């Protein structure tokens, strides 16, 4: 491999922010036709290194080398012009525009007098979409597409330029298995064309399926680069977190208390219908299904954010109507929402204020906030959840994704709920924090909480649940105990009758 010249090379990159050395001497290269994984826990420096590559940050030291020459990136557009293309984890599409307009945004083909050449635009776009094998066309409005398909539009965007290196940042976070296959095909095509690919993901199985080499970062430090075929999950995990990972499944059951929450025939318009289940104290009930199966909507109904069209909700055996989140909180229901930046946190507020937000009315000393009590709560959950932040005054927006999620979880744990609902608790979170959060959820059940975990990750559901509710298209297909569940029967249950209808 040494005789092949890398398309892109980073050499001794250092980037510091006030108080943090975010990157400390990062060096790695990407060969043409290679898929190079970049791994590390949240806050390890993956995003920062990509921002340096994209010209959003300027490195304090070190060099970016493309081909033979050192380059300086002054912004994302310049990086793109040089052939470095980013597929972002968070979508940046104009919802009101068509797929074609989004893909060629800023560089629409022109005719005379500056008029857009629509025919050519659609023709080019459809050519790219054909390559991606997607089920929509150039004229579709982006806002009408599912998240997964929007991601495909982002990828299509990357294919419009003569890319030398393409960076995928958690591209499969919201994709179904079928869509993943298409994505991997696209990556294979790029590879065949000699494009270098940097692939950032937390998902081990993907990394081992498609990458050639793996570079691991930890706390901004470069740990090492290994050939994928010469290593295994355990070693990579150890490199990432410096210790071994617990991958065992849940077999132990805690002593069950009475039924904390029971739902009978609950329906909400077309979102879901006739949903029945119960959660006992001391139990973790997993909800597994594809994106759009109606799981989040059920959680939102239980939290008073949606009005059910039929059915009953019973708390401790008593029928209740939950009319607002405040009402739900007062009845001891907590929801850790799936979108932590949009729903979970006020990014401009500090850590402490975010954590105590649901109980501001209870933390009073006279008419004022009892700030000492607030800090005490923050300190307690910072230690319990191992939240890494310089202090409670830190703005939440400055924290890494994993630490942000822990703030949200801490916020709801500090409410000591009867029923804790967590929606995608570990989305975009590194393996280390993931298993900590899993342990935490089990521990909560052991303490007598009734816990509902909604997840799209099978290992997660298997790992934490005592029972699993499998949903498909707004209906409960089957409820499994952890003894009778297998990967196969679970997948069958959540796929409904035909696989291609799901998404």
């Amino acid at each position, binding site marked *: 491999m040494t005789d092949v010249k890398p398309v892109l090379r980073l050499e001794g990159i250092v980037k510091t922010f006030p108080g943090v050395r975010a990157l400390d001497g990062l060096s790695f290269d990407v060969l043409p036709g290679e898929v190079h994984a970049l791994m590390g826990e949240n806050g390890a420096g993956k995003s920062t290194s990509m921002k340096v590559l994209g010209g959003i940050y*300027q490195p304090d030291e070190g060099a970016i080398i493309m081909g033979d020459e050192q380059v300086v990136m002054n912004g994302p557009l310049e990086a793109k012009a040089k052939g470095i293309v980013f597929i972002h984890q968070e979508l940046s599409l104009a919802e009101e525009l068509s797929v074609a307009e989004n893909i060629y945004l800023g560089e629409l083909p022109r005719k005379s007098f500056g008029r857009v050449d629509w025919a050519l635009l659609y023709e080019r776009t459809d050519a790219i979409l054909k390559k991606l094998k997607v089920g929509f066309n150039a004229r579709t409005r982006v806002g009408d597409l599912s998240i997964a398909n929007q991601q495909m539009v982002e990828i299509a965007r990357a294919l419009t330029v003569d890319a030398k290196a393409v960076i995928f940042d958690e591209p499969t976070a919201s994709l179904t298995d079928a869509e993943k296959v298409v994505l991997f095909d696209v990556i294979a095509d790029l590879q065949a064309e000699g494009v270098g690919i940097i692939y950032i993901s937390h998902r081990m199985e993907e990394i081992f399926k498609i990458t050639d080499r793996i570079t691991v970062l930890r706390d901004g430090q470069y740990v090492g680069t290994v050939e994928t075929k010469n290593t295994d999950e355990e070693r990579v995990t150890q490199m990432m977190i410096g210790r071994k990972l617990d991958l065992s499944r849940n077999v132990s059951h805690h002593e069950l208390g009475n039924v904390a929450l029971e739902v009978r025939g609950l329906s909400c318009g077309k979102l879901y219908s006739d949903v029945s289940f119960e959660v006992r104290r001391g139990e973790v009930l997993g909800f597994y299904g594809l994106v759009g199966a109606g799981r989040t909507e059920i959680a939102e109904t239980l939290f008073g954010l949606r009005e059910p069209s039929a059915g009953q909700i019973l708390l401790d055996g008593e029928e209740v109507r939950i009319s607002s989140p405040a009402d739900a909180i007062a009845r001891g229901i907590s929801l850790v929402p799936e979108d932590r930046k949009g729903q979970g946190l006020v990014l401009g507020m500090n850590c402490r204020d975010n954590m105590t937000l649901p109980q501001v009315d209870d933390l009073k000393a006279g008419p004022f906030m009892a*700030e000492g009590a607030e800090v005490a709560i923050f300190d307690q959950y910072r230690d319990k959840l191992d939240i890494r932040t310089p202090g409670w005054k830190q703005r939440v927006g400055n924290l890494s994704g994993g630490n942000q999620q822990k703030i949200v979880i801490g916020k709801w744990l500090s409410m000591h709920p009867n029923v804790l609902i967590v929606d995608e608790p570990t989305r975009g979170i590194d393996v280390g924090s993931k298993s900590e959060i899993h342990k935490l959820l089990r521990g909560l059940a052991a303490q007598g909480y009734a816990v509902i975990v909604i997840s799209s990750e099978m290992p997660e559901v298997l790992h934490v649940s005592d029972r699993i509710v499998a949903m498909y298209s707004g209906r409960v297909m089957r409820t499994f105990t952890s003894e009778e569940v297998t990967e196969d029967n679970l997948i069958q249950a959540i796929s409904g009758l035909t696989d291609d209808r799901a998404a």
Partner: protein
Amino acid sequence: MSDVSQREGAKREGKMSSLSRQQIGTVLAKQGILIAFVIFIVAFTIANPKFLSPDNLLSVVRSSAIIGVMALGVTFVVISGNLDLSVGSMMSFSTIVVLDLHDKIGPLLAIPTMFAMTLCLGAVIGFLVGYLKLNSLIVTLGMLSAIHGLTLTYSGGKNMDIADKEGTWFGFFGQGDILGIPVPILLFIALAAGLGMTLSRTPFGRKVYAVGGNGTAATFSGIPRARTVFYCYLISAACVATAGLIQASRSLGSQNTVGQGLELEVLAAVILGGASLLGGSGTIFKTVIGVLILGFIQNGLLLMGLQFYAQFVVTWIIIILAVWLDIAAKRGKLWSSFA
């Protein structure tokens, strides 16, 4: 060899300058408005030594009190992520109503009645913006006009005057003083202290920041978003009523248009103080600084002998400059790289 050391040197130098630039940026972003404030004062003092005399300072604060009191309330509205453009015409309404009622039911009853009526107007806006979730720009712009019409209907278009100007204690709020300090200033200070504490230290204040910072997350935390916005408009209306009281008491007579255009000055003071129009940031202290800057600029220009009408132009140029510098400091450069 020398080439290498030269490069090293250049690198270090580049790092030095970028570091110190970053530090300056941080300081500017945090204290930009205070620094601008000091610069204004120094510049005006050099131009006219009388500027810093106690008499002049007192008169600046006194003349800023009305704008200031209203700006305190609007700060709540802006932090909650909304706008209030109706405060000027609402103040005209308060002033006219209290002057009219003064002669009809006496000052003791006139004042609480006027407060109640003004709060009703605030409640209407709060209901429309908070509970019906209508755009605050549209609602308060509409209310600006509607309340103006209401005032003219009420007064029949005539100026309002208190009949017996000598024989009433009503002038106390605008003209009186306690221990040599004018009452409008005392009212401003008391309200600023009370509302400052409310905003920074009470659960309600925390909710205002949460609702303005991320309304969805606030809802997901059980914060009653609509009610919080509603209360912000009530606070704004209460401040407007106080401003109207000061205005009426100061002149004991008024035109229907006494508050016209003040909504923009009030908003300018709040924004000068550094509150974000997007909501979620700002403090009462900063708003007070913004109010004083605005007052000092206008007073300074007056002392420099600038023609009254030209003042509007210069004031606005300075406001735009200050906002620009503030934003530039926050993003670390004067121009945005995104066109």
